[in-house]
Structure formats: structure tokens, C-alpha cells
């Protein structure tokens, strides 16, 4: 859900640019383009993959606890989920065999697959799944992501070894999508009985790898699960993983991470920055995996709860006053296609409306004149009743990568030509959340990862404007529209797939046409890897890579 992004580049944006420049300069002339997807050769068993993550090291390897993206990345190697998405993005049962729902939508029956064991020997059954759900819902577990996915469950009962019956408070057609997220992955009930510290250090799952050891502040060592049973034959091979082991390292600096990949010290890096991806495109031995995250697109939310954005005309004017396209093209080196949707492009129900979003300063000017912002002050900014047209834009330096921060600065420059002042405040995460809680913002960009269109309800329902106990709320546009709430309600509970699609499309139209958001691009999730690694590309429902089929050429 809300996910801490790499702390990565705060120290050295300048150095990174310089690094990229020199890297480009030092490329061998023989280098040709990469990204050929055919992996010739016969798979080889053995070898250790070294993975370098740019994210902060998780504080707990069990994604039930807390629940952020760095945890999902590593846990995807040793934990599996009830449902997952296949290569075409279709939701399929994984540890579950299948699932049915009663006519009133209030009873969900989940059949659990037979014959699968956790790596500690415990058998997977309905009672084990029930124990996991109880673990997630127990306040002492301190789940902040997974428990939301199970929020509508009222009670549960393991009817027999393979049947779990869930009674829901209200119908929830996103439950199976929720089950596909690593934050709701299934762990050994025997292992869950240990203390939280023990379970955090070595959670036990059913995945192709298992946690061998965790040297904090250094690396997590994963080894092959020799007894692995592939639940569904969607992979390129059966049996166990090709790799002996995976060493999961943490290299916070983007430039160092890329240098380590080039030096052959590591074979996969995540959080690859646009400059490195562009540079890698010219290196034949480095390949690129682009795996946008599901859920919301990266977008700027316009705070409609107060002036000036309580006026829809001003929101529309702002959107036409900034030249997002030109900035994205130049700052992201073509690695991030522009989005015109509130949802990620990997969401099957995403609705795009490109015609609403275009740079048109003349139109912006007319709209602002009509809205009463026709006068200008000595600095050229528009004023109305003695107030300058000024927008506060708190930016989290840990969530917005350097390229995105530059994008915001360029927006600031183009908006000024239309007489709009944008005040960018670069903040650490705590202070950033502090400003949101105080309603001290007009513009904000916040990521939100979730599987399925139900993320729209999180982002745009009136209920989401009410802060959680921590002060957090997700509806940053502060849309409070009873008609929209009604649509979201029905869209989230209907059993009719066609109706669901139609309703969520209406929701997205309302949001886009109300100019509550300015979509930028998908949530960027880029990986670079050595061409010695073959068969890289499989990902989970939340776009974390898995390495079951991957092998390391000599």
C-alpha cells in the first residue's frame, strides 16, 4: 500500500548524473542493444544469484508485520500466496485450488490445494490458512498492509482439511485480488507460533527458496527449497529451482548499485534509475526488466478541499498550464511512458482519457480569467481578492526519485508562465506526512500499490478522507462526492464482472473529468540484470520478480 521508496539518491543526484555521463563515455564501441528476450541454451543447475536492492533493508522478513514493498520483494522468493497472476495478467489460484462465493456475496469458500508442505515439514491446509489470517488480524502482529486486505472478513472456519469458509461483513469482490499480494502470503503455522523476533528473522513458507540466514545490515541468504512443489504448471520447468542460492544485498546508492552490476559483483539490481537504464541500453551484457507496479498510477493529486482547487475551473487550468509530456520525455529518457489514467497500465480495468491532459497555456489563461484570477501582481503571478494564485507542493525526497523531483521543478517553471506559483517543499517522509495531516498542501504525489481496481475506493471515497489513528488518509484529492461513493460501493460488491468493469470505468471518468488528478506515469519498477542470468522476467501480482525459472550461465 503506501510504500517507502528507495532512500537511494538523496546524497548524490549530481554524482549520479556525472556517473551516467562517464559510464556512457566509457562504453565500448562494440556494445549493441540489449533486450533480446530469447534465452538460448540449456538450463544449468547451480550457482548463487546476488541481488542488490536499493530499498532500505526490511526490519522484518515476514511481510505480515508492517508490510511494505521491500519486504514483498524479498518475501516473494520464499513465500507464496493463495492467488497470483499469470504471465497475461490473469488472476489464477495458486496455493488455493479454487473459490466460490454465495449468492448474497457474504460467504466466500476457499478450497486449499492438497499435498503442499512448508519448508519446516508442516502441511498446508485450511487450518494453516486460518492461522495466517488470524495472525494478520491480531494487533500484536502490527500488520499495516495485509490486515486492510482482510478488513471485510467477519469470521472464518476451517470446515475440513481443504475447505476454508469466510463470512464477510459486506460483499467484497476484490478479496481474491487481495489474496494475491505478498503481504497476505501464507506461512507455516508452526513457525508462526514462535516469537515475533524469531519469525521476523526466518519466516517459513512454501516457496522455491527458503531463508537460510540474515546478517542484518548486510545480506539475507536464501537457499533452494529441495522439496519444492510447483502448485500450478505456469512456469517454464517443473521440479525445484535451478539456482542453489540467492544472496540478497542492500546497496542504497543508485550509482554504486549500477557499478556493482557492471563489475559483475551482483547480477540483478532493482530501483534502476532512468539514467542507468539509458546507459545500460548501450551495453550488450546488461538487460532490462520493466515491471510497473499495479494499483494506482503515479499521479499528482489536486487538493479540492480548499481554495484555489475547490474551484474545478482552476484545477482544469492548472492541468493545462504544465507541460508534463516534454519533461517526462527528457528526464526519463523514454523509460516512462506518460499515463492518462488514475490506474496503473497493468490493471485490466484501467481507463485512459488522453484528451483531457495536454499542455495548453492559452486555454489555462482563459479558464483562470473566467474564474476571477485575471489580475497579476508585480512578480507576474495571478491574484484574486488580494491573494496570489499560489500552490503548496510538499515533495517526499524518499518517494520521489531525482528525475521526478526535476519534473516537478520544470512544472514549476511552466506554471509560472501562466501566472501560477508552485512552492515545492522537499521533505523527509515524516515531515511530508505531517504536512498532509495538517491539510497544508495543494498538490501532492503519493504512490499506492494494490492489486485490482478497488484501489480507486481507497483513493477516492469519502471514507478515505477520514484520517487513520496515525493521521494517515489516502484520499489526498479529498474528493467527497456521494454519487462517486455510491458507484464505488456497488462496483466493489457486485458479482457481475461486466457491471464491475462498467462501474469502475464510470468512477475513473468522474475522477479524471473532475480534474482531481494529473496522471504522470506508471509506478516505476525497473530492474537491470546481467545477461548471464537466463529466464528472468516472471513476477508476482505486485510486480516483484521471482527466480524459480532463472538459471545462471557459466
Amino acid at each position, binding site marked *: *500500500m*503506501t510504500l517507502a521508496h528507495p*532512500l537511494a539518491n538523496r*546524497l*548524490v543526484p*549530481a*554524482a*549520479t548524473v*556525472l*556517473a551516467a555521463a*562517464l*559510464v556512457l563515455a*566509457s562504453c565500448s564501441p562494440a556494445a549493441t542493444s540489449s533486450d533480446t528476450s530469447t534465452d538460448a541454451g540449456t538450463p544449468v543447475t547451480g550457482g548463487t544469484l546476488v541481488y*542488490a536492492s536499493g530499498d*532500505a*533493508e526490511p*526490519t522484518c522478513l515476514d511481510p505480515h508485520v*508492517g*508490510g*511494505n514493498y521491500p519486504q514483498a520483494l524479498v518475501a516473494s522468493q520464499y513465500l507464496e500466496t493463495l492467488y497470483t497472476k499469470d504471465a497475461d495478467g490473469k488472476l489464477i489460484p495458486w496455493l488455493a485450488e479454487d473459490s466460490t462465493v454465495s449468492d448474497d456475496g457474504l460467504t466466500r469458500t476457499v478450497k486449499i490445494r492438497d499435498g503442499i508442505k512448508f519448508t519446516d515439514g508442516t502441511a498446508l491446509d485450511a487450518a494453516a490458512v486460518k492461522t495466517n489470517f488470524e495472525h494478520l488480524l491480531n*494487533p*500484536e*502482529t*502490527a500488520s*499495516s*498492509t495485509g*490486515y*486492510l486486505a482482510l478488513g471485510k472478513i467477519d469470521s472464518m472456519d476451517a470446515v475440513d482439511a481443504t475447505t476454508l469458509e469466510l463470512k464477510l461483513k459486506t460483499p467484497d469482490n476484490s478479496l481474491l485480488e487481495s489474496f494475491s499480494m505478498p503481504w497476505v502470503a501464507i506461512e507455516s503455522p508452526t513457525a508462526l507460533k514462535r516469537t*515475533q*523476533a524469531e519469525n*521476523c528473522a526466518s519466516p517459513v513458507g512454501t516457496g522455491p527458496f527458503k531463508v537460510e540466514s540474515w546478517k*542484518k*545490515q*548486510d545480506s539475507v541468504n536464501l537457499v533452494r527449497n529441495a522439496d519444492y512443489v510447483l502448485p500450478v504448471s505456469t512456469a517454464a520447468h517443473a521440479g525445484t529451482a535451478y539456482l542453489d542460492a540467492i544472496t540478497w544485498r*542492500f*546497496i*542504497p*546508492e543508485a*550509482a*554504486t548499485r549500477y*557499478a*556493482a552490476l*557492471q*563489475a559483475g*559483483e*551482483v547480477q540483478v539490481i532493482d530501483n534502476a534509475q532512468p539514467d542507468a537504464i539509458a546507459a545500460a541500453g548501450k551495453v550488450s551484457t546488461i538487460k532490462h526488466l520493466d515491471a510497473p507496479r499495479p494499483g494506482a498510477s503515479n499521479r499528482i493529486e489536486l487538493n479540492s478541499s480548499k481554495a484555489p482547487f475547490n474551484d474545478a475551473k482552476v484545477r482544469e487550468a492548472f492541468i493545462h498550464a504544465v507541460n508534463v509530456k516534454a519533461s517526462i520525455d527528457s528526464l526519463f529518457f523514454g523509460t516512462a511512458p506518460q499515463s492518462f489514467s488514475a490506474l496503473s497500465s497493468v490493471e485490466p480495468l484501467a481507463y485512459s482519457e488522453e484528451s483531457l491532459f495536454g499542455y495548453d497555456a492559452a486555454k489555462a489563461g482563459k479558464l483562470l480569467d473566467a474564474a476571477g484570477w485575471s489580475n497579476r501582481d508585480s512578480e507576474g503571478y495571478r491574484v484574486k481578492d488580494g491573494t496570489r494564485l499560489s500552490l503548496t507542493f510538499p515533495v517526499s525526497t524518499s518517494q520521489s526519485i531525482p528525475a521526478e523531483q526535476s519534473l516537478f521543478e520544470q512544472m514549476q517553471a511552466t506554471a509560472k508562465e501562466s501566472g501560477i506559483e508552485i512552492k515545492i517543499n522537499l521533505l*523527509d*517522509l*515524516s*515531515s*511530508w*506526512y*505531517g*504536512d498532509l*495531516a495538517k491539510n497544508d498542501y495543494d498538490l501532492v504525489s503519493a504512490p499506492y500499490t494494490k492489486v485490482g481496481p478497488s484501489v480507486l475506493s481507497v483513493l477516492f471515497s469519502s471514507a478515505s478522507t477520514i484520517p*487513520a*489513528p*496515525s*493521521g*494517515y488518509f489516502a484520499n489526498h484529492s479529498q474528493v467527497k462526492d456521494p454519487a462517486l461513493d455510491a458507484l464505488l460501493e456497488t462496483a466493489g460488491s457486485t458479482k457481475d464482472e461486466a457491471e464491475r468493469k462498467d462501474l469502475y470505468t464510470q468512477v475513473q471518468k468522474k475522477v479524471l473529468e473532475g480534474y482531481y488528478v494529473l496522471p504522470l506515469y506508471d509506478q516505476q519498477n525497473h530492474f537491470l540484470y546481467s545477461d548471464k542470468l537466463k529466464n528472468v522476467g516472471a513476477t508476482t501480482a505486485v510486480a516483484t520478480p521471482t527466480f524459480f525459472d532463472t538459471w545462471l550461465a557459466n
Partner: protein
Amino acid sequence: MSASAAATNRSHGSFGASVRWLLRKLGGGIFVLWAVATAIFFGIRMIPGDPAEAILGGPGSQASPEALAAARAQYGLDLPLHVQYFGQLWRLATGNMGTSYSLKIPVTDVLRELVPSTLILAVLALLLAWAMALVLAVLSTRSGGLGTALASGLEIVSAAVPHFWLASVLIMVFSTALGWLPPVSTNTPAGLVLPVITLALPLAGFLGQVMRDTMEEAQRSAFALSARARGESETGVLLRHSLRHAALPGIALSGWALGSLLSGAVVVESIFARPGLGRSLLSAVTTRDIPLVTGVALLSAASYVVIMALSDIAERLVDPRISAP
């Protein structure tokens, strides 16, 4: 009164002075530690947000009210502020630094694991900086005008170079372009070269500048002249007499050098992905891990106090004009 009695008296007096000096240093040290602990305790609470969130996975977590309450109770965050403050002081005084919010292990364990790594880095960097500064000072003083100008320029440039820039350039040249050294630091000789150079170079610039000034001054002094008059060679004068002078500001600056090395370690350990105090401090501050921030800061303050005391003693040993402690 016999001569021997007078001697005992004098040495007794100097022993008493030493004890007083030590007590004064100790008292000052304790005051510094208290001030650091207090500043951090109140300072970190002024950042917006709830420390309980830090325990539950960071700011913006959507933890349930029950989970937040459980975390507050577990870490005593629901107690009145003054109770928390004095409780914290008492625990620190008894050597209990608490449990890291983010790592969920005792802070003392974290420190024990990380200190050697940062210490190796800092000590090697300090030695290298000293060696480079001395060699440069001696060579340039010997070679006269042009050498001095060159060395001075070199020192100013290296002293002004920011760590992150230097680190990035070194990685680009020696890891990416030449492929000689790894970009990720380990405790192997090859893995230490780049981070140690990154830390040492700016420090060597500072130390060299100060040492050479002192050395040149010493070379012009009366004792150098008299040594030359005794027939001592120019090299002899430099090594046997002036060098000792040049070492003095270097020693006096050691406390400051330690501070520079520790702040440099924050950057260097992050860039070279090396486990250590600096990198942990950065992530502890980011995640508002109050016990860990307090632990690292107290440890730095304590070592600063110790180094200052040691450099005081060393200065007195090298320079007889300063009365022995």
C-alpha cells in the same frame, strides 16, 4: 627538609594535579553525554509524526489503533514525557540503551557489531591522512618555493573535495573504467582501498596545510639555526627537529579529525554499501529509530571526549613546554 622529601612532595603535587585534571575531564565528558542524550530525546520528538509508527514500519503506515496502542505500551511511549525522559536517562546511566525500533535487537548488540567495521575504516583513513600529510609537508618544505606552491594547491583542492563526489569519481575510475577495485566495500584489502582513500584525502589536505605551515615556521626558528650551526644536515634538521613541531597541530586536530571521519563515514558507508555506524545512523534517522540514533550519537560523543583527552596527553608528551598532566 631533605632533598628527597622535596622531590616526593613535588611529585605528590603533580600527581594530585593529574587526578584533578582527570576528574575535570571526566566531569566534562559526562556533561557532554548528558547534553547529547537530552538534545536527542527532545529534538527527535519535534519531528512531526508518531514514534509508534516508526516501530510499525515507518511513517504513513496504516496501522490499526490497536496495533499503535500495543506498540506504545510495549515501548513506554504512552507514559508522560518527563517519566520517559528520566527513565531514559536512568537506563542510559546503567548502560541500557534499549532495543532498536527498526532492527528489533538491543542497541548495544547493533553497536558491538558495527563499531569494528567503522573503526577499521576510520583508523586506516586517519593513518593514511597522517602519512600523506607528513610526506607532503616534508617533501614540499625540502624542495622550496615551487614545491610549496604545488603542495599547497593540492592540499586546498583535496580538503575542499566533498566525500560523495570523490567516492563517485573513484568508483567510476577504479571500478567501472579500470575494473581494479570493487565498488562495494568489504573488509578485504581490495574492498577497503576506495573508502579509505575517500575519507583520507580531504583530511590529509587539512592536516597537510597546517603541518607544513608549522614546519616552515620551525625551519626558520632559532633552534633550527643552531642545529644547522652544529653541522646538522638540512634533512636532519627537518626530521629530527621540525617534524616534531609539525606533528603538534596534527595531534591537536585529532579530535576534530575524528568528527570529520565519522561524518564522512555516513556518506562513505552509504555510497560503498558498507555496514557501519554512519550508514546505520542515516537509516536510523530516516526511520526515526530513536534508541539507535541515541546509541550512535552517544558512542560518537563518548569517543570524541576520549580522543580529546588522549590528544591532550599526547600533546603534553610531544611538547615539554606544556606542563605534564
